[in-house]
């Protein structure tokens, strides 16, 4: 079976987000009442796996091994079967 994984990697709370702060500053200058901007990266991954659960486990492994640095990053994963 083929699965479409969406992995979002963002900063853990408490870590400053210079990119988000810069974007927020400019958005305010453009007239928006922006309180805060947080930047995250989204990886869309097509993966062969035996089940949805297996696909999820593989994605978690990918985060630990490459996509996220546990010092500063959080991640969320969504899995959908690719028809």
């Amino acid at each position, binding site marked *: 079976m083929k699965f479409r994984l969406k992995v979002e990697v963002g900063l853990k709370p408490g870590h400053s987000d210079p990119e988000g702060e810069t974007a927020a500053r400019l958005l305010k200058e453009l007239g928006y009442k922006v309180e805060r901007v947080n930047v995250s990266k989204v990886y869309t991954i097509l993966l062969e796996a035996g089940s949805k659960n297996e696909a999820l486990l593989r994605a978690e492994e990918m985060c630990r091994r490459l996509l996220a640095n546990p010092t*500063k990053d959080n991640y969320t994963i969504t899995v959908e079967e690719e028809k």
Partner: protein
Amino acid sequence: MKREDIRVCILRVGGTNCDAETQTAFEALGVQAEILHANDVVKRGNLMDYDALVFPGGFSFGDYVRAGAIWAKWLVAKLSKELKAFFDEERPILGICNGFQVLVEAGFLPAFDGITQYPEAALATNHPPGYHCRWVYLKHENRGKCVFTCNIQEGKVLRMPVAHAEGRFLFPKEKEELYLERLYDNDQLVFRYCDKNGNPADGVYPINPNGSFHDIAGICNPEGTVLGLMPHPERAFYWWQQPDWTRQTLMPFYGDGKLIFEGLIEYLEKKF
């Protein structure tokens, strides 16, 4: 080991820079230094033929995912046995700028209890954000453990340039104080950003150019044989590489960067 027999491997991949400057620095000090593509080292299986290993600066693999992350995980997949042997035999490993990012991502630094599977620290996006290329002052904080700097007096202020966008040294928030204590206890803190008189930057830009926790610019492992630093010693090797050379009438022939390379070489001469 005789100086002329020392062989240094400078590893490169796509996006590496300053490998030629690093080679020049080593050769000027009388050792053999070769620039090798990481693929060739894997193909030939000859990493253990070298006495020291350098990960130079640059933007390996385009800094994709996180600076240094791709190369670090590539190394773990392809060369982990050799790298572990290098580490265990206490052959010196130097990571400059992107090389520091690689060593942290690969778990070779801070390596409180040996090489870790997952990173225990991070070099995050600069604060203030952006690519900062400037000369900075560094205070040497090591008490003698780091083999690269054991000839440098504790408290000495050095001058070197930084050139990076992801150099903000971080520990996990919940372990910040604990890990900092371990850095001090193990004598792993090597360089901190400071002003020209050696006063700590206290996070103030541009003295601390990237917002690093505790103004950290460079650390070593507990054995002192792996050093990672964000500033570029190879760009501060000769007097004419320094920003004020046209305004000075008399300058020492070498810049402060030489001390790091010399430390590595003297360690090899004594130990092996």
